């Protein structure tokens, strides 16, 4: 089985191998420390999840490794294959002071591990096993097979890709693999998940397991939006037949901000077994739409430079596609970012989960009155919390903060054009 670099803290993205505590050929017991890693927080020992033999060390001491990278190969006692990634239990040691941050390391590589110094050339990148159908779906929907491969033992199949995209299509049968056991042996009364639920469960699990995200927050006033809506809404409704909503304004602002910050249009992707990024050519935005028992994310393509009327029509059509169950091929296309607008919900702010294949997601909380300071005076205004979650593998905090600031300005100050 693979012995991987665990994510030992919320912000951990990489680690340095300080010291191997076991050598190849050593017998190891479950819970026994195998390696000492240095993270951004502390030095930690990582324990073996199983009984067995340390067969091969793939990363030498002193090397930097990314979360999820393979450290070693463990031969399990009894030889049974596992289907889950290694669960490791970090145990803090008496940590020396954190060393200074080193030069940036490469994003996590799968499956080639970081190269140990003075070691033999690395083994060639193992081929990602995926069925032809899974490869096609992944290609069409922008799913990174390398990401899926980290959590999948054996061949990646249709169900895995669909789960990763949260696509609408139900799996052909309830017997397809699901991360949540359909019939947990310990609870006979449990109802199996609906196919949509199972897929969402798998997707969000995958996201949490594989995407090192950080979150940025900003409160913005929607007073300007409300004024523009009252001013422009009737004409748009008359001419384009669509009633403008806050979502349309948010989408137009988001599209403009993305246009100014094309770095936010990157997507994390598999580049022949190595991590890579895809620069998305146009401003495509996924829109999270709630449906009974779950949610879907249709795609609003090419929103750059669109009028509010055009955005409104695109938004209305997308929602209708979801509600009528008639998603089009483009709805499975990869998008760099999604918008989840719960402005009419009950939570002031919330953090959305980045879909596999996306690099960020914008969550919009309850539209509500709040006291803000303006020009040294407390002012009551109406607004929303924007919560932006970002994949740190591609985008750093300063970039995200700049983007969020520009987005907030755009929402608060317009200009709005029908």
């Amino acid at each position: 089985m693979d012995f991987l670099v665990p994510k030992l803290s919320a912000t951990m993205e990489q680690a340095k191998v300080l010291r191997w505590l076991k050598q190849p050929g050593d017998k190891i017991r479950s819970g026994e420390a195998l390696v000492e890693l240095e993270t951004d927080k502390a030095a930690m020992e990582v324990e073996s999840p199983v009984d067995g033999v340390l067969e091969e060390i793939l990363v030498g001491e002193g090397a930097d490794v990314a979360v999820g990278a393979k450290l070693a190969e463990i031969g399990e006692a009894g030889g049974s294959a596992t289907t889950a990634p290694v669960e490791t239990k970090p145990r803090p040691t008496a940590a020396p002071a954190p060393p200074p941050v080193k030069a940036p390391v490469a994003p996590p590589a799968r499956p080639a591990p970081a190269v140990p110094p003075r070691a033999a050339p690395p083994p060639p990148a193992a081929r990602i096993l995926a069925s032809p159908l899974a490869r096609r779906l992944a290609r069409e929907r922008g799913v990174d097979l390398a990401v899926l491969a980290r959590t999948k033992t054996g061949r990646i199949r249709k169900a895995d890709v669909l789960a990763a995209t949260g696509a609408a299509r139900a799996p052909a049968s309830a017997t397809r693999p699901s991360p949540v056991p359909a019939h947990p042996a310990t609870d006979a009364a449990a109802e199996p998940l609906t196919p949509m639920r199972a897929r969402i469960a798998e997707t969000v699990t995958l996201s949490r397991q594989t995407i090192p995200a950080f979150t940025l927050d900003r409160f913005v006033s929607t007073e300007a939006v409300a004024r523009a809506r009252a001013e422009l809404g009737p004409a748009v409704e008359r001419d384009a037949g669509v009633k403008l909503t806050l979502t349309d304004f948010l989408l137009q602002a988001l599209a403009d901000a993305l246009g100014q910050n094309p770095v936010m249009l990157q997507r994390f992707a598999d580049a022949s077994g190595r991590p890579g990024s895809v620069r998305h050519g146009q401003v495509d935005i996924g829109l999270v739409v709630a449906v009974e028992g779950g949610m879907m994310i249709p795609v609003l393509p090419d929103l750059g430079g669109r009028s509010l009327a055009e955005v409104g029509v695109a938004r209305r059509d997308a929602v209708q596609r979801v509600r009528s169950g008639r998603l089009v091929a483009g709805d499975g296309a990869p998008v760099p970012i999604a918008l989840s607008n719960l402005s009419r919900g009950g939570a002031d702010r919330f953090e959305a989960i980045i879909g596999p294949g996306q690099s960020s997601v914008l969550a919009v909380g309850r539209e509500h009155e709040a006291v803000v300071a303006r020009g040294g005076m407390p002012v009551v205004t109406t607004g929303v919390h924007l919560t932006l979650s970002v994949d740190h593998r591609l985008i750093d905090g300063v970039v995200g903060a700049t983007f969020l600031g520009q987005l907030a300005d755009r929402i608060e100050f317009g200009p709005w054009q029908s």
Partner: protein
Amino acid sequence: MQEITYREAILAALQEEMRRDDKILIMGEDIGPSGGPFKTCQGLYEEFGPARVRDTPIAETGFVGAALGLAITGYRPIAEIMFADFLGVCFDQIVNSIAKHRFMSGGKVKAPLVIRAIGGAGLRFGAQHSQTGESWLLSVPGLTIVCPSSPNEAYGMLRAAIRADNPVIVFEHKALLSTKGPVDIGGPIPPLTGPRVLRPGSDATVVASLAMVGRALEAAELLAKDGIEAEVIDIRSLRPMDTGPIAESVRKTNILVTVEEQAQIGGWGGEVAAQVTESAFDYLDAPPARVTLPDYPVPYSPPLEDAAIPSPERIAATVKSLV
């Protein structure tokens, strides 16, 4: 629709066609007054006489070759091969003469003839009398090869084969002879070739021939209990092999399983898998699987023979391992 056996369906087709066209005659071993071991020609001799219902010597090369001679000179002969296993005896006539004569003449000589070969395992006949032989002639251009899986198919396909202007090999199955089913007596002549979907399903495509069709349908019943919907397709004709509808099904189900009563190497399942892989590669979610006989001759002892023939359980288990 009448409920009759596969044997009666064959007989009905022969009778009907021979009454319709007096250029049709049938030759074979023990098909005359004795009625033969499988009784697929019973009563024909009495009705049509010795000129059109001809008992031959045990000489497949002789009478199968003679069928070609009759066909190219104006008759429409049917040759019955008592056991499909005996096709080996007349291989040269089929491969080098019958299949090629029209071609070698530049298309000028028509050869409308039918070879009926009764094959298949399950009746404890041992290794030399239990083969379906269905793939033996698969690589021979110039032949049409069909495999009726039910009484209605036997009736319809045999009539269509007799009316075809080219050589047709009809593989019948002796384990099916006594099975009953609805037959559209006097109904329209069905297409001679091309597969037929017998049971729709969304989760796996199961393609079978001859007696394996019934077993595939039984397997589909077993799978349905587990919530797996198998689409069962009767391949019907091996040559020409139209895998278009099979690929179409796989585009929907993403899983392909073939079931045939012969050894895996050289079976038609490999060709179906190859063609479907060529035309629907991006829709396959698992490697195509073939359920076949093991790679040894059909054994005699009942438990051994039963274990060798693909069972509904084995077919179902194969499907389950893929979905």
